[in-house]
């Protein structure tokens, strides 16, 4: 699992990988760690770690235990734990997470809500 002290997520721990040549449409829900480098339209959900890579283009609502976003996301993001927004990220939507870091260059067009883990957990449970 990824945490703030780790520099990179171990790719071998990913249960699901959506590569750059792939387009997914629909409700993409997993139970393990997910890496997305391709295109997703719909919704993405996991209790574990989600990595949205630099090549990824996501038009979907996102829910995850922890996440790093380095690609383009159009949609709301809800993260129970720590959300890392990389310099290459471009997010159009509301972001809700317990902890957030935004690297210089990272773009967020939307409402940022930080430190409301209970609210985020409740939202995930309700959905």
């Amino acid at each position, binding site marked *: 699992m990824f945490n703030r002290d780790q520099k*990179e997520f171990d*790719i*071998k721990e*990913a*249960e*699901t*990988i*959506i*590569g*750059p*040549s*792939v*387009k*997914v*449409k*629909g*409700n*993409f*829900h*997993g139970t393990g760690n997910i*890496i997305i*480098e*391709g295109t997703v339209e*719909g919704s993405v959900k996991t209790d574990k770690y989600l990595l949205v*890579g630099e090549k990824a283009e996501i038009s979907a609502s996102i829910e995850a235990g922890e996440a790093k976003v380095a690609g383009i996301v159009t949609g709301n993001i809800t993260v129970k734990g720590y959300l890392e927004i990389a310099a290459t990220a471009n997010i159009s939507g509301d972001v809700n997470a317990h902890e957030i870091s935004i690297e210089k260059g990272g773009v967020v067009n939307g409402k940022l809500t930080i430190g409301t883990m209970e609210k985020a957990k409740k939202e995930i449970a309700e959905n």
Partner: protein
Amino acid sequence: MYIYIYDSFVNHKKYEKVLARIETRITDLGLNGKIVRIGIMTSVHDVVENELRKGANTIIAVGNNGIFSQALNSIAKLTNVGQNVTLGLIPIDREKNEIANLLGIEPEERACDILSARRIQTLDLGKAGNNYFLTQAQITTDSTKLEIDENYTIETREPGEIFILNLPTLDLGIDKDISNAEDSKLELLIRTAKTKKIIPTKKGGINHSYLNFKSVNIINQKHHLILDKHLNVDTPALVTIAKEKINLIVGKGRGF
């Protein structure tokens, strides 16, 4: 009782000597049984069904991936006829014998010693429509649409291959930790020309897709789905893990 089913291609004269050596070795090892040669008018399924009804419990396919796939399908479809049937393989030629390599079965008469050791492993099977497979189902990405678990669809934008993995053949270069035939699960792998390693290093980046699923409906109007490198199946085809399993004779050097 052992039933040896010879694929039609081994009826060619050039295989006479190797078949004679195999039959001698079988006799030496006390593995004698009935030999059935498949010809134009003989169906593997009919042969297997007849022999299972007569009480056969071990079917040995003699040939390559093709006869193995046909025998495996017949046994899986006839579970109401034959209980606890075991399938073995004597590979002839090195070509088109990737399944033998995977199972650790040495070619030709050396396979007889592996049959004699009778190391049996019970493995999962995949099912595509009404057909079964042990290793993988594959189809080109060209014009292929995947509907997964009735929740989402996948389309691929680059030329490549789509694999549904149960027990992938060794030539795919897939780590056994990624896919095995004892977890009652299938995996989907999409690789393109840019894919170098299935487990990428940080340097190489990610150029493949990989995920678990319960069922995938494969749709392609132009191309067939290929099971176990042999059997062409029309689409749409719903692919799932089968409830039937297969007992296989495997070698020490198996790749799983």
